[in-house]
């Protein structure tokens, strides 16, 4: 499988403060790679290293097979970049600004700018500094997507967008992926990454603490379980459930003619289902895994406690 972006022991210091402590990752060509992490984790720093806006202190970066430091304008023309904080202050219209970036990084297929503007609901003939935050963000997305680059690097792409436009953005990401473009995006909101990404890297304090597929993340996440069963004593039910691998915090909610228990499940559900099959269930609730919860635990370094 071809690798579109990779980093090996990528380290970046600003003065005495080390922002990235030697991170490693690889992004398959044609996939969507999401980075999540709390503010200040190093997400933006990583992206800026890919674009040669800042230079790594140590380690190696490869973008579309090249060192960004040496790839020059030719490499950056193959990348679409949306900065995390987008400032567009000039007294120019969106259309003129896009024409400028097209002149620098084009060519852009004819009609593409208008098509994207329409999809995102962006007026191109207004002065950029008069645009709202959301509309500036749309303009930022447009300049990143318009020339259909091989790689899209998007820093907090949906920040400031309303839910409808966010959906449109997700559709744009899917189309880009379908066309074979690689997308490297980051967010501090998990749901965003979860919706679009194939693979998620979790970054905290300049370390990558996990790289997983979204399905893998879901498997590792904790689900809330609630069962009601008849014909079994409460303590027998507790013992039975507690014996299942991955089940913890079993609590009796009600015990009478039937027993209601709640528990947490981490890991695969198959062993639990097998045990439940032996019970006379009257009710079963197996919730969607709470990825947010799982990731928050990783952020704060408490992952081990769930085991």
């Amino acid at each position, binding site marked *: 499988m071809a690798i579109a972006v990779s980093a090996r022991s990528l380290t970046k210091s600003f003065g005495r403060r080390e922002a990235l402590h030697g991170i490693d990752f690889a992004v398959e060509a044609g996939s969507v790679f999401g980075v999540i992490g709390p503010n200040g984790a190093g997400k933006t720093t990583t992206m800026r290293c890919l674009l040669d806006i800042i230079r790594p202190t140590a380690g190696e970066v490869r973008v579309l097979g090249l060192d960004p430091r040496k790839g020059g304008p030719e490499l950056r023309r193959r990348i679409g970049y949306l900065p995390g904080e987008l*400032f567009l202050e000039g007294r120019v219209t969106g259309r003129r600004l896009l024409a400028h970036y097209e002149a620098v990084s084009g060519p852009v297929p004819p009609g593409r700018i208008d098509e994207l503007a329409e999809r995102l609901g962006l007026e191109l003939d207004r002065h950029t500094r008069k645009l709202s935050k959301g509309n500036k963000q749309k303009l930022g997305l447009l300049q990143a997507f318009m020339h259909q680059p091989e790689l899209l690097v998007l820093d907090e792409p949906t920040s400031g967008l309303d839910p409808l436009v966010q959906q449109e953005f997700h559709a744009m990401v899917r189309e880009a992926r379908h066309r074979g473009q690689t997308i490297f995006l980051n967010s501090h909101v998990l749901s965003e990454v979860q919706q679009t990404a194939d693979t998620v890297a979790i970054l905290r304090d300049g370390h990558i603490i996990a790289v997983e597929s979204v399905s893998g993340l879901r498997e590792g996440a904790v689900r809330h379980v609630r069962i009601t069963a008849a014909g079994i004593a409460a303590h027998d039910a507790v013992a039975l459930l507690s014996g299942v691998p991955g089940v913890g915090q079993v609590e009796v909610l009600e015990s009478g003619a039937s027993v209601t228990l709640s528990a947490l499940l981490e890991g695969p559900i198959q062993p639990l289902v097998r045990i439940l099959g032996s019970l006379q269930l009257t009710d079963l609730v197996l919730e969607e895994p709470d990825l947010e919860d799982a990731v928050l635990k990783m952020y704060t370094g408490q992952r081990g406690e769930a085991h």
Partner: protein
Amino acid sequence: MKTTLPLFRRAFFDTWRSTLAWAAGLAGATFLYLPLYPSIGGSAQMHDMINALPAQMTKALNYDQIATGPGYTQATLFGLIGFLLMTIASVAWGAAAVGGDEESGQLELTLAHGVRRVQVVLERALALLLRVLVLAGLVFVLVSLLNGPSQLGIEPGNLFGGTVVFAGLALLSGTAALCGGAVSGRRIYGTFAGAAVGVLGYVFNAVGRQSKDAEWLLDLSPYHWAYGNAPVANGADWAAAGWLWGISAALVVLAAVALERRDVGA
């Protein structure tokens, strides 16, 4: 679609309002000062008044020259109000070109596109140069127009030479601002560097002309290199013009090298 010098075009054409405003200011100053010459500079009354002023003051303001048309133009327009306006415009543009653009966060996006950093600095310096030339050219044309009606009696060749050093002096402050901004990534340091060149140059000239002991200050004053021999009256010192333009070019190269070597927006 491939256009030549895209960054220059954006830096030059998308700021036409600012260029126009400074041009209007310079034109206003020219029309305000020069037509007054027959009634002020040339009059005997004025002559007596200037003789009554302390010698240090007339030297500091270059008013020792204003009894003649070329001297009056040199002292009031090229040496004072025009110098002030041109320097402020040039410093503002120079500081905004890289430092201001980086500070506002816009440079990051530009550099993420298909450009080289050296190219960014050079094309924006070219836009600065051209805008300074537009303003200086305007002053040249207006002074030529007023030369007859205002009885200034300026030799066209001297006016040309004077305009060249006038532009060179403003450009030096502007490129110092550009360089300060490119090295630091901050508009304020660029403004500081550019203003320092302009203000210190002026002050060193004013103080250096007061006494023999302070004369060494004149060698440090770009203002004095440019105007020490009153070029509008006596023709430009072309070696000085070479220094002004040469150092400006060197500052642009330094800015390009500095930006090429450092992190942006960090």
